[in-house]
């Protein structure tokens, strides 16, 4: 099998995640799409680690997970807070900061 297949898959997953971020309105779905993008990047890191025969890529993937966890915690807290005040989880509803 072509080693690049993993990378192609990673690219496709990343692109789909980006599409989700751009077209979905629900904040939770948007967040999940971001998680998808992070995971796609992780797949690429792991694949590169295998390709180079070094563990650094795996370490980076590990750190990505740490950062993703932190981001999810803060992001979900923000979503809850916004939901409390606005009774909505739509990212389009929070559009006061504009022209």
């Amino acid at each position, binding site marked *: 099998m072509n080693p690049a297949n993993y990378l192609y898959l990673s690219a496709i997953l990343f692109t789909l995640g980006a599409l989700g971020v751009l077209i979905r*309105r629900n904040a939770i779905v948007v967040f999940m799409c971001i998680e998808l993008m992070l995971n796609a990047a992780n797949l690429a890191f792991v694949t590169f680690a295998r390709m180079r025969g070094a563990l650094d890529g795996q370490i980076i993937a590990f750190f990505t997970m740490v*950062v993703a966890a932190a981001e999810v915690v803060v992001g979900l807290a923000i979503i809850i807070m916004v939901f409390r005040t606005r009774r909505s989880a739509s990212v389009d509803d929070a559009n006061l900061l504009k022209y």
Partner: protein
Amino acid sequence: MGNTGHGETLLFWLGSIVSVLGALGLIFSKKIVHAALALCSVMLCLAFFYMAQGAVFLGVVQVVVYTGAVMMLFLFVLMLIGIESQDSLTETIRGQRFLAVPLVVAFGAVLIGVYAHANLPAFVGTDAVNAKGGGNVTALAQLLFSRYYWAFEVSSAVLITSAIGAMVLTHRERTTPRKSQREQSIERFERWGRGERIQVTGLPNPGVYAQHNAVDTPALLPDGSPAEVSVNATLRGRDTVRGFRPLPLPGQVNGQVNGKQSAKQSNEVSQ
């Protein structure tokens, strides 16, 4: 693990199909729970891929942390917001979808073009480094606590900060002391004394004298009519009160004593 065997090829294609379908499901499912489940499937597939590529530790972490903890957190928040909440897929921002789709396609094309263009080597495999370190976990740990020690420390600070941040963001300051039951009771009586028509005593329990003792079944008043005030307001609001609906008496089509009327009356009583 240097090169891919037939087993891995099979795994890859199966997994890749499942994960792409999962990603599409994440994007296009209306119900958010479905989206979350689709994301779980993608993550599990990726865990398989990690393991297949020699990253055993990462594969386990993927299952435990991501699929286990993070996705549970998502579902938990989902429940807070409303498990049944749906997301309309119709676009409201003019031109957003029209621009987004070609842009995403272009981005994917560029990314794939990069990989196709790159002069990628064959897999070296991580077996050698894993063996040298005495297993994948040990090798990773050695690397983590030596070369990436500083990043590791910083990531701990990030985690602590995020934990505190979450607490600060969701915290609500109490500005008045909590009222005791006694105070609440006194207040109710005072309002009643001023002539307000309110329920002074405690509300009746649901299910009393009724056919069922479930929470959505209103208690029956001595005249046999249901006391809807005994049912939780949330259930009443969703109109899911299971009920005793007395049949209208002959010649009394719009009977004075029917469920809705009495519910209205009892609502007035509760106000």
